[in-house]
């Protein structure tokens, strides 16, 4: 070991004549000490660099103990993604099995307290509504290969796990939008007729340079939820890959350079911090390994329970969640997020009888014959709701009231509940199809070329699309549909602004402040107890009036006597 270590150092003197054995020994010892101390120094530097444990590709290869380009298993060539996975699994024997236990793989999640069956496989949303019958399009964000229909996918096959979608460091690996999770293996145009040709990725090179997950790899799916950049979350879009400090104080590459997994800590490929079981209140505080819950997916995990210098600001943490003040607006990176999606207007054709789109001039469609009307917004002020972390979904088959706005999800908690906090939300609103005969949400078959597909040969025929969509989920369709307005609450946690851009007191403590619509509690400065003000000032006015009369009588009395 020592000889090996010293061998890399310049050792010219060892070849000079003399008592070379003694000299070599001494030199070896000296060089070993030198080598050890310089390595230690490097290690120290690495430990001090805030981004060392979280850095993407470049630094990652400097800290890893394995150079994947030296493994003969990864020499390639690889014809398909599953071939790469098989190579990975030769060393990482348990990795695929671990992935197969996660929501990333199953797209199914049983909520521990509500018992609801959630996950992408089950929920209904107000974007593209549902996954069933639309698999090859939706599963371009599945952490696997080949989930292209309702029944045919083998969830137990280990080679179906896609390792590199998360571990690519080249930025060249992209799942093809309609490829059921596969990248394209030959040059292919998408969207059809766009002239934009997707090139097959160099799988061998990607496999040889794998590394930790990064903002880019997580973002490859999570920034594009809802079918495009910035559509779904509002606080996650492609600008978060390389955010400025103003956009995200933790993730800015010229600052702390956090990756997603810095907070969404993982163990055995289970990623913590799922929205399905939002931790609205963290009473554990700073996450000490071995003593706590081993996740940093809450602000308190690092910032503790008394994060502010000002005690009065700390006083708020029993009712206000951190992001309420620290994410003053979402969609701040320059990309608009979708706020409204009206499916009911889909299917219009232009004068030539062709489907068309209308743009907003900034790259977003405000109308698309295939999808209906959209409203996009940037720098959006969140809406605020009480929230205890429990979200109930309106699932397929649940009876809805089509005369009102149907909640896609319902938040637990309320004022006065010690387990609830005021949280910021993106409220996604829209109109979507429902079964007018049975008053349940409808799930349409959108994607595909077949005669029933809304976007295919079905040619915007809702009846066909809903009938097939519902059938795939074993739910009876009455045959008549309508459109119902829905809203879907998305907790806002990302795009944390630098502290000097956090909300000021007046943002809420004022009349018509940000929490004006949130009743059920007393908030100073917001004009609550207004009746007391009316009564109090009236009494003061009457007193003043009495005084004026009294003073007038005094003046008159003095005059009379004169």
């Amino acid at each position: 070991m020592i000889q090996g270590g010293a061998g890399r150092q310049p050792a010219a003197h060892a070849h000079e004549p003399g008592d070379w054995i003694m000299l070599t020994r001494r030199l070896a010892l000296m060089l070993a000490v030198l080598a050890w101390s310089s390595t230690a120094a490097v290690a120290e530097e690495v430990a001090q660099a805030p981004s060392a444990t979280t850095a993407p590709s470049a630094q990652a290869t400097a800290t890893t103990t394995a150079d994947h380009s030296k493994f003969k298993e990864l020499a390639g060539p690889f014809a398909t993604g599953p071939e790469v996975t098989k190579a990975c699994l030769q060393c990482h024997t348990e990795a695929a099995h671990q992935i197969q236990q996660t929501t990333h793989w199953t797209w199914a999640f049983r909520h521990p307290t509500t018992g609801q069956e959630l996950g992408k496989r089950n929920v209904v949303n107000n974007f593209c509504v549902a996954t069933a019958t639309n698999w090859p399009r939706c599963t371009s964000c599945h952490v696997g290969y080949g989930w292209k229909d309702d029944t045919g996918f083998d969830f137990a096959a280990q080679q179906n796990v896609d390792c590199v979608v998360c571990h690519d460091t080249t930025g060249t690996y992209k799942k093809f939008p309609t490829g059921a999770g596969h990248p394209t293996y030959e040059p292919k145009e998408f969207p059809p007729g766009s002239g934009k040709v997707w090139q097959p990725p160099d799988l061998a090179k990607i496999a040889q340079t794998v590394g930790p997950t990064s903002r880019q790899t997580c973002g490859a799916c999570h920034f594009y939820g809802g079918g495009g950049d910035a559509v779904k979350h509002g606080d996650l879009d492609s600008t978060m890959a390389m955010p400025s400090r103003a956009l995200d104080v933790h993730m800015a590459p010229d600052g702390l350079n956090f990756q997603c997994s810095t907070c969404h800590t993982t163990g055995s490929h289970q990623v913590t911090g799922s929205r399905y079981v939002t931790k609205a209140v963290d009473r554990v505080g700073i996450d000490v390994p071995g003593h706590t819950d081993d996740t940093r997916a809450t602000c308190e995990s690092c910032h503790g329970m008394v994060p502010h210098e000002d005690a009065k600001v700390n006083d708020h943490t029993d009712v206000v969640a951190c992001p309420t003040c620290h994410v003053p607006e979402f969609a701040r990176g320059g990309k608009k997020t979708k706020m409204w999606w009206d499916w009911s207007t889909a299917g219009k054709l232009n004068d030539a009888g062709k489907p068309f789109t209308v743009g907003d001039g900034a790259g977003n469609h405000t109308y698309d014959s295939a999808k209906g009307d959209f409203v996009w917004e940037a720098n959006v002020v969140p809406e605020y709701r009480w929230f205890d972390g429990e979200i109930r979904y309106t699932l397929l088959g649940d009876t809805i009231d089509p005369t009102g706005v149907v909640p896609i999800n319902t938040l637990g908690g309320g004022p006065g509940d010690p387990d609830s906090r005021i949280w910021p939300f993106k409220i996604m609103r829209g109109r979507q199809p429902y079964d007018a005969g049975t008053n349940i949400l409808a799930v349409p078959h959108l994607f595909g070329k077949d005669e029933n597909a809304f976007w295919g040969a079905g040619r915007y025929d809702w009846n066909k699309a809903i009938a097939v969509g519902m059938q795939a989920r074993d739910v009876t369709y009455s045959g008549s549909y309508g459109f119902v307005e829905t809203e879907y609450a998305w907790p806002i946690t990302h795009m944390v602004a630098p502290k000097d851009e956090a909300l000021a007191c007046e943002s809420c403590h004022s009349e018509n402040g940000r929490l004006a619509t949130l009743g059920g509690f007393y908030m100073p400065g917001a004009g609550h107890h207004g009746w007391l003000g009316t009564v109090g000032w009236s009494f003061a006015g009457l007193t003043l009036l009495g005084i004026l009369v009294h003073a007038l009588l005094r003046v008159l009395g003095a005059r009379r006597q004169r």
Partner: protein
Amino acid sequence: MDRTTHSDSPRDEVMFTRFERLWHWTQAVIILALGLTGFEVFGSCRVVGYETAVGLHQVLAWTLLGLWVLALFWHLVTGEWRQYVPTLASMGAVLRYYTAGIFDPRIAHPYRPTRAAKHNPLQRLAYGGFLVVIMPALWISGLLYMAYNQWDAWGLGFLSLGTVALVHAAAAFALVLFFVGHVYMAFTGRPATAYLKAMITGRAAHHDDPAPPHPAA
């Protein structure tokens, strides 16, 4: 109808000591500022901005509390607290004076202040009410308000911020009424500024102790 007699004619001497005047005027300024900032926090007005108002209100509150500790000590060691013990003696005459006699310049104030009893019964009631009802209500509710997040730890979890704020604001409105009345009463001397002058210079007409029982009628 001159009811004063010549046998105990008043002399112009120090009625309000330097400390009393210092206490009074400092307190007046602080309370005015507390009122302005407090009603901004309550939401009645916008003057310096909510955050600044909260900060100022707290600093002012602690300053006034400090002043009160001094004043309490002073009143205890000098025995001057007795000035605020309420009485009904000659209350009728004083009330009649302020509701009728005051409008006739020939009618003198029925109460003849002495050093040991310089406040008439109406003053005793008003100042006593200020000192033992309004201000303690403000102190208690205000300190609780500030300690909002310690309530659970102190076993006060049954309190609600809305109620505490309500008590605090209601007491503040009572203080507003006191303030308005008090300021007006300061100008009811003869001449009108006599009482104000007395509170500034300390010197006022007073009678010899002990105060002879006044024929109230």
